[in-house]
């Protein structure tokens, strides 16, 4: 693997780390399997790209992308808690709808960002090569998000959100409005995915409606890899695990695709991803079984 490919993998891993953290929030904290992210990620990219072309400040454009993602998440959550549609189905409905919304936002299937200023532009002139500047800037953003989120989940409000996911009945008996916490949690989760989409558009120089496909699987893969590598109970460490998992996942994919001996092509990416997630899900189970067998002896 070349140095550029290596840093490229780290960079894309860091961008998707925000998706991983968002997926951790929905799947793990709230126990709400949310597929909206397949739509909110390209929505963030689309909103950001369109605003950048319109000459909006890149930070504002990224913020707007996050808000757009949050709004998408809110739609899913409201469909579930208010109208009692199964969470999985509610999120699929939003996801499908977002495909059309994203086409409308961009006016065409993809938008290129060629000369526009991005959040990265001011850092390009500082003497470091571009392929190192990009992951560094994204790293700083991801670190800030992780710290803020860990602090949020340790607050009274965040703790109530975690209780909602663990034991909703108990939470209600403690006066927690579980519906409101599901709404804000899923909105936050998708807001992070929207922000990830914005960073994706800015680091890669384009937004495309099809970039959303499989986002949820990538996010989940990162969460699972992170949990395997860093099996921590502490909140901050669990979030760091998501980030590490996301980077490791990208590196693994990069290795798999560049190792000529295996003979894989770039188009095999989704197959490799699915296999990786399946293996990551199966391994702990096998490990538990072999431990039980040993204990029985």
């Amino acid at each position, binding site marked *: 693997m070349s140095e550029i490919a290596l840093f490229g993998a780290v960079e894309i891993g860091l961008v998707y780390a925000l998706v991983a953290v968002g997926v951790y929030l929905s799947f793990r904290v709230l126990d709400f399997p949310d597929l909206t992210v397949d739509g909110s990620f390209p929505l963030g990219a689309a909103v950001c790209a369109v605003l950048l072309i319109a000459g909006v400040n890149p930070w504002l454009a990224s913020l707007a992308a996050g808000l757009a993602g949050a709004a998408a998440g809110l739609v899913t959550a409201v469909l579930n808690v208010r109208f009692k549609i199964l969470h999985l189905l509610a999120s699929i409905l939003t996801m499908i709808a977002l495909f059309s919304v994203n086409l409308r936002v961009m006016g065409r299937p993809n938008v290129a960002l060629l000369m526009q200023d991005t959040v990265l532009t001011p850092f390009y002139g500082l003497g470091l090569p571009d392929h190192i500047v990009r992951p560094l800037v994204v790293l700083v953003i991801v670190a800030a998000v992780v710290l803020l989120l860990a602090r949020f989940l340790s607050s009274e*409000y965040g703790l*109530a959100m*975690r209780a909602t996911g*663990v034991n909703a*009945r108990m*939470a209600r*008996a*403690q*006066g*927690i409005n579980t519906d409101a916490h599901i709404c804000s949690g899923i909105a936050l989760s998708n807001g992070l995915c929207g922000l990830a989409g914005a960073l994706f558009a800015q680091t890669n120089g384009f937004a495309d409606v099809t970039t959303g496909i499989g986002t949820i699987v990538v996010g989940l893969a990162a969460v699972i890899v992170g949990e395997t590598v860093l099996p921590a109970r502490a909140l901050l460490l669990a979030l760091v695990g998501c980030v590490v998992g996301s980077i490791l996942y990208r590196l693994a994919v990069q290795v798999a695709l560049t190792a000529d001996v295996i003979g894989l092509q770039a188009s095999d990416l989704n197959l490799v991803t699915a296999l990786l997630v399946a293996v990551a899900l199966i391994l702990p189970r096998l490990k538990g079984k072999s431990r039980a067998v040993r204990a029985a002896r």
Partner: protein
Amino acid sequence: MIVVQDIHVTFGRGTPLEKHALRGIDLTIPEGEFVTVIGSNGAGKSTFLGALAGDVLAEQGRIAIDECDVTRWDTPKRAGLVARVFQDPLAGTCATLTIEENMALAAARGQRRGLGLALASERRNGFRDRIAALGLGLENRLHDRMGLLSGGQRQAVSLLMAALAGSKILLLDEHTAALDPATADFVLDLTRRIVRDNRLTTLMVTHSMRQALDYGDRTLMLHEGRVVLDVSGTTRAGLDVPHLLALFAKQRGGAEISDDSLLIG
């Protein structure tokens, strides 16, 4: 103080499984009274507690807690007035959160939850003192996940949690039924202590007639969604389990007691 006026609850209305669980309960429980509730399976004990807590809304009648009409309030809204301990030790706590996180959740019951740290250090120390008073040695395990505790320990912590935030009434739904006899006695003693120290108006559902008479100041018997027996004071002091059984049989029109579990203990 709890005032209940003619409440009715029906499950599955209009279906073949329609069940008229509460059929007009009228009750006034003065502040600080400890009431035990007995009745056979399906008598409506749990439904009655659920109606007080807000889990099921009465379709008719009125419920007031401390002069406050809560008839239409849902569970989270009533939580500032109502503390509960469930029968299932798993139901009343969050297994994957730590002991102190569970306590922090309970300490904020019925209050606005903001962005301040849930576990500030002075609060932590307060929790440590409270839990040390249980005498279970849990004060050194505040960082342990709740799921690591035994059923009895969890119920003891649940009771403690119920008293952490101010509340008007305490609802105990057979909270010792899942425990072994020695642990059940410990939890009941703790119940008595916490109810006395916090002067809580308490309703305790139990399956054991012995417990119903030994604890509290007043005993209610429910049958088919109605209060069929309501004793307190000297009448109650003179009662023993056989008397209670006889009264129960009389209320049911001389029918034999068929529910064995009522006779145990």
